[in-house]
């Protein structure tokens, strides 16, 4: 039976049109029905969500929302739970990623949305999270309260399982209604989360609408931007520019574009006894979701002069990637992706003079370059350039031209280097620095692309401290 995508509060399933799409392979086919709404249906859904959020979300303390999300996540962490079993069974089919990799990845990811992590998430952006519930004293004097958008519009992209959860949870925490469009390449997760939430706290799920349309259907996209108070968009620069063009002036559009991330390995991590472990961590970062995440490394800069040379390190890395391929095979590539990988391999070798390590079928590729080279993305799908560098301090200058495109840097270095490099890297636009091996698992409350995930979504209404005194003078008990 085909799986329904989406979550449509206030709209009966039979009143919506559905577009059927095939996923999976010959062996494991999967038919998915994607909701295909009329513009009027989308508009009335937005109005429904706005009204439900006003009634059920804005009236409860944020702690209660945290509780509801926590209980939902607890269900999804339970491998026996119906919703979780469905995710484990179907997300690998939809995305093509290795099943065990998806399952492990999902558990690690969901853990960052449990109660303690959600509270950290709140504390990260609000010195006093109660500011979301009522007017709270401000440090400068007076009082302030955070007000959220009635409807937050999300336009998601890509096939990394669970990605929509970030902005959905952020929207809920600030008490906003949420109307999100899923991507065709992974249309299921967001709707399932809403279904699970509905079983825990039905009223909250009424504040979430999950819809879909084919990319480029401008009428629905225009309606979404018109009905939302703030719009969050993910995707390529081209896609974001197209959304931006539809957002009315003055409305906040938070764009999360595609990014490039890379890794740095210092000689401290290249002792004979440490180099294997370092390579294993790097290989894990490369293999997870086949480098499709914006936090996935596309290049590794390796310091020369260690016990293990950069070239040896490239070989160690190759060995680890080969081992991972056995355990978590890469997903089957489309002909376009295979062609892009083949032409990247060719260019790395013939144009840029790299030494290529890779298996015959191209399931992983390491391209080694003896000398410093500019940052250059790989063709993804487990293809990585390893570059030898004389001094780690040279790396920031290499990447400086690409300031607006940078995100995560995974570092294997001693504390002194970590902080020295962090200054220089932040200065050229890097927004997240983490340990090698942790690149693909951002911690709870991280500042995605250097932004404030929650406080970017609210407006603060202030009571000027002088208003208090002025009011005092008008009190019936004033002298």
């Amino acid at each position, binding site marked *: 039976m085909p799986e329904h995508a989406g979550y449509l509060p206030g709209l009966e399933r039979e009143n919506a049109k559905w577009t059927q799409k095939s996923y999976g392979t010959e062996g494991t086919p999967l038919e998915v029905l994607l909701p295909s709404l009329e513009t009027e249906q989308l508009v009335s859904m937005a109005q429904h969500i706005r009204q439900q959020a006003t009634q059920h979300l804005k009236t409860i303390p944020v702690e209660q929302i945290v509780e509801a999300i926590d209980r939902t996540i607890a269900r999804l962490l339970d491998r026996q739970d119906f919703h979780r079993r469905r995710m484990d069974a179907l997300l690998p089919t939809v995305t093509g990623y290795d099943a065990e990799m998806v399952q492990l990845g999902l558990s690690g990811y969901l853990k960052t949305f449990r109660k303690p992590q959600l509270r950290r998430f709140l504390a990260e952006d609000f010195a006093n999270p109660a500011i979301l519930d009522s007017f709270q004293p401000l440090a400068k004097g007076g009082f302030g309260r955070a007000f959220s958008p009635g409807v937050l519009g999300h336009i998601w992209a890509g096939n990394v399982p669970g990605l929509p959860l970030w902005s959905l949870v952020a929207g809920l925490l600030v008490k906003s209604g949420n109307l999100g469009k899923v991507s065709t390449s992974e249309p299921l997760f967001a709707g399932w989360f809403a279904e699970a939430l509905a079983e825990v706290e039905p009223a909250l799920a009424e504040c979430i609408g999950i819809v879909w349309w084919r990319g480029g259907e401008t009428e629905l996209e225009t309606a979404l931007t018109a009905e939302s108070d703030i719009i969050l968009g993910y995707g390529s620069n081209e896609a974001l520019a197209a959304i931006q063009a539809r957002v009315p002036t003055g409305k906040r559009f938070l764009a999360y574009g595609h990014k490039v991330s890379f890794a740095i390995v210092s000689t401290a991590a290249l002792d004979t006894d440490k180099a294997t472990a370092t390579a294993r961590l790097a290989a894990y970062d490369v293999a997870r979701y086949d480098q499709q*995440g914006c936090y996935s490394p596309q290049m590794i800069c390796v310091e020369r002069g260690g016990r293990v040379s950069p070239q040896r390190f490239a070989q160690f890395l190759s060995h680890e990637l080969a081992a991972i391929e056995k355990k978590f095979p890469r997903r089957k590539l489309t002909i*376009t992706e295979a062609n892009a990988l083949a032409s990247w391999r060719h260019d790395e070798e013939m144009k840029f003079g790299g030494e290529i390590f890779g298996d015959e079928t191209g399931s992983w590729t390491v391209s080694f370059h003896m000398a410093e080279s500019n940052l*250059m993305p790989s063709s993804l799908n487990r293809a990585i350039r390893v570059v030898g560098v004389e001094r780690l301090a040279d790396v920031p200058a290499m990447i400086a031209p690409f300031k607006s495109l940078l995100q995560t840097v995974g570092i294997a270095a001693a504390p002194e280097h970590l902080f020295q490099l962090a200054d220089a890297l932040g200065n050229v636009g890097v927004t997240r620095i983490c340990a090698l091996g942790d690149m693909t698992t951002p911690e709870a409350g991280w500042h995605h692309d250097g932004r404030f995930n929650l406080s970017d979504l609210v407006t603060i209404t202030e009571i000027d401290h002088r208003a208090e005194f002025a009011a005092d003078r008008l009190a019936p008990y004033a002298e």
Partner: protein
Amino acid sequence: MDCDEITAELLSFISNAENDDDAFEVLAHKVFQYQFENNGPFAKFARSRGRTPRTVKSWADIPAVPINAFKTMDLTCCNPDQAAAIFMTSGTTQGGVRGKNYHSTLRVYDASMKMNFQRRIMNGQKQMEMGILFPTPDAMPNSSLAHYLNLAVTEFGTRESGHFIEDEAIDFKRLIDTLRDAEGFGQPYALLGASFSLVHVLDELHKLGAAFKLPEGSLVMDTGGYKGQSRELNPDDFYNALAQTFGVPRSRCVNMYGMTELSTQFYDDGNEQCPSIKSGPSWIRTRVTDPLTGSSVPKGEVGILAHTDLANFNSAVTILTEDSGIETDEGFILLGRASGSEAQGCSMAVDEFLKVAGAA
């Protein structure tokens, strides 16, 4: 073997109507060896793939040179300064870097073109009146298509034939007058040109409300796709519009598939049904490959096209295209470009990076 010897062998092969598998195999090996011995960058490339004249047992073992390599390597067996012609790609991708196909002589290219054109387009006729919707070789000296179309006119066109593009503009008035004359004259007429120019003509004629009923035996040949120079039509709409506007049945609307990086063209037998099946003469063969392993995919599956063109003897006998296709009994179905891969997730893909970094 020197340039004259290999040229002579190729000319003889091309003029021979019946060439069997063995003959192709023998000459393919000779051309590969010729390139291996006379072109340093090619030999280096072949060695990096573990292919030398000793290890190559069949034409299918010849390593396929990616078309990108025509941008970065000097693929020529003659001194580049002494090339009789250098045909260049349009350079619309990769920051305007143009791929170059060097020709030490055009004798083989021209023989290949003429022999094949006569059989597939002329259909037994000696001459036809032709209209060309593409600039002349004088205007575009590095365009293989300009050379090809000019060759068609000079070899097979009647005296009345001519080009309808001058100073980058289509002379609509002269074109319409000519087509009206052809209607009345009653002899078959051939309109040949870039697909996007034909779209411009269709749009203009539609605006004017003009349509023609060209005499029986007439044909329209398009090539090259739209390249962002006109609106994009799906094949059925395009061929329906051609058929309606010129009064030529879809079975006489032929598509030529050629590449700057080759010296031989493929044709279909009209586009009554789309997608059509493309095929070439006995001196070119196509494999549908897995681009990562280079091996052929099972018949019926989608892969990347690799062409082994013996006439391409001065540059690279086998090239790996960026076109996807499917092998059939009679040839192959061309599915289109398989490039510009977008990331599936939120990671930045190479193409986007180059675009953004280039603009930064």
